[in-house]
């Protein structure tokens, strides 16, 4: 095990996969100087500008060219800089990448990873803060991954690069500097298996990405009051680990889904509805969801904070559920 940051874990994963497979390459804006957050630092020195490819600010072309390159037998790792900017390349991602394999009758694969740094971070305001994971989950053909820890950012990025289908890979900008133990074995983490972040018996808190850590903080607050919250880190949203959530809810009888994104129409609704349809008999209390209000993300810090789900808000919701 080594103690490294979430950012370093992503960089190491890409470097290891590029050493392992000559068809893997990275393409995006400013990669040669390390990427906008430094997550590509040092890679051009090792792999050269042919495989760490700088691009014009042409998101549609970055995405579209990656599709063509994937169809022609390579494995591009696309950097979108901010998840919000991927919206400039939606025809390419949704109409082309996600559908090529199916509409060509299985003749083609599109093995590409689309890295989309997402989420609330340092007053980045309305066009640099969004979490749009539910958009991609809605599109057949896409795999959607949202790592919460350094270990997962290494193992899941490696798995995403080895995946033969397009993967939307959502790193959280507020986690870049988070550090943690990462295995040295270089093994990928299987996409689709949730991680039990904290064991508990009174309530199941389902979260992903940045919200896993917030839920763990809430669980610590609740433990002081004698409430044992179980925290499940979904890790991937398509596919999502239904079995893990079902098993936990059958144990605790309560479900709270926590997302950073806008609550309305969010992925939490999918989790809640699935449990409601298929495991309502196990519930001792109504399912709850927490998420952002349906507003663009404001710039001012106190206003931005109003859009954040806090450990206290999670603890309060759980306390309500447990009290009945």
């Amino acid at each position, binding site marked *: 095990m080594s103690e490294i940051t979430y950012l370093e874990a992503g960089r190491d994963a890409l470097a290891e996969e590029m050493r392992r497979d000559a068809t893997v390459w990275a393409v995006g804006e400013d990669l040669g100087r390390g990427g906008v957050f430094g997550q590509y630092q040092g890679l051009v020195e090792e792999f050269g500008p042919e495989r760490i490819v700088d691009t014009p600010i042409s998101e549609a*072309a970055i*995405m*579209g060219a990656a599709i*063509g390159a994937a169809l022609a037998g390579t494995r591009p790792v696309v950097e979108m800089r901010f998840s919000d900017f991927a919206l400039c390349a939606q025809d390419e991602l949704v109409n082309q990448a996600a559908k090529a394999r199916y509409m060509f*009758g*299985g003749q083609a694969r599109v093995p590409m990873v689309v890295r989309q740094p997402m989420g609330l971070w340092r007053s980045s305001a309305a066009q640099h803060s969004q979490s749009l994971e539910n958009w991609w989950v809605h599109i057949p053909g896409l795999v959607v991954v949202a790592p919460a820890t350094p270990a997962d950012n290494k193992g899941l990025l490696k798995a995403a690069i080895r995946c033969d289908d397009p993967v939307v890979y959502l790193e959280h900008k507020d986690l870049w500097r988070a550090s943690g133990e990462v295995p040295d074995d270089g093994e990928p983490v299987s996409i*689709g298996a949730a991680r039990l972040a904290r064991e508990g018996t009174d309530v199941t808190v389902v979260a992903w990405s940045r919200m896993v850590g917030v839920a763990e903080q809430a669980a610590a607050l609740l433990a002081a009051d004698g409430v044992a919250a179980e925290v499940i880190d979904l890790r991937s949203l398509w596919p999502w680990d239904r079995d893990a959530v079902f098993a936990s809810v059958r144990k605790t009888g309560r479900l709270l889904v926590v997302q950073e994104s806008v609550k309305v129409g969010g992925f939490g609704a999918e989790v809640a509805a699935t449990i409601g349809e298929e495991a309502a008999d196990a519930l001792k209390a109504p399912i709850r969801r927490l998420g952002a209000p349906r507003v663009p993300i404001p710039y001012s810090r106190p206003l931005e904070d109003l859009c954040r789900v806090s450990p206290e808000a999670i603890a309060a919701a759980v306390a309500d559920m447990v009290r009945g």
Partner: protein
Amino acid sequence: MTAPRDNMDPERLRGLYRVMLRIRAFEEAAEAAQKDGHVPGGIHQSIGQEAIAAGVCANLERSDLLTSNHRGHGHTLAKGADPTAMMRELFGKAGGTCQGKGGSMHIADFDIGMLGANGVVAAGILIAVGAAHALKLRGEARVVACFFGDGAVNRGPFLEGLNWAAAHRLAVLFVCEDNGFAATTRTAALTAGPGIMARAESLGVAARGVDGNDVVAVDDVTGALMAELRAGSGPRLLHARTYRLAGHTTADAGGYRSAEEVAARAKDEPIGRCRAALLGLGVAAADLDTIEGAATREMTDAVADSVAAPWPAPELAFTDVQDIGAPLWGAP
């Protein structure tokens, strides 16, 4: 009148004539089958534009790559696809090029380097550029031909794709088939500036214009551009002027242009011009009639085969979505 070069090989011209006739026969047979209720989705015919597909693809190797647009039957046939599998695809039947899951606008045949028609105008430009980028990364000498229409030059991928190809010096031949119409609107009415070639040149992509109804000229100019591309010139653009004699789709009655205009332009259509040139080279009319009869029969047979072909197995609706997180058969 198509003017053959002094050294024009009658055999090569006869081959181009045959390809054009096969494209025409395929699309006429598809339209008839659609009228008979066999083709459920829309089709975009390239009737009148066949010389561009034939002339460009005559300069491609089987291993070269191709991207196409919604009007792509001709490009696909000219690259070497099997018309029976293509017709089955239009019918949505088993054994179609895409197992009946794509239809006319998504025909692809990766065995012959055909990376897909496309239902979104200009989308193939970026895919072609990326395919060429991959070839460069892998050190392969193959080239990519990228067909799109005049409507595509007003979409962003034209700018982004040509810039990218020029900046990275990629081996892409951009082929703009300028039939004068963006769907059912005259492109000139809504396209600013000095024209498509000037736009390409402004992005550092050298462009050549050609009479796209003159198959000899298309073949010649493409041959010259391909020689440059294969020598490492970086991207090139071919601007081929033509006229779409059929509607935008087979459902388009063409009320935006007069019958007189279409009739006048029909006199200039490429197959008749090629036939006249072949006769001028001393090829016997009976010989040309034989080629035409064979093309018609081939496509009539493709229709008969497709009528008799079975539907795809229902499970296919659920296959080839994705490996991880694949849908379960019958599950929502």
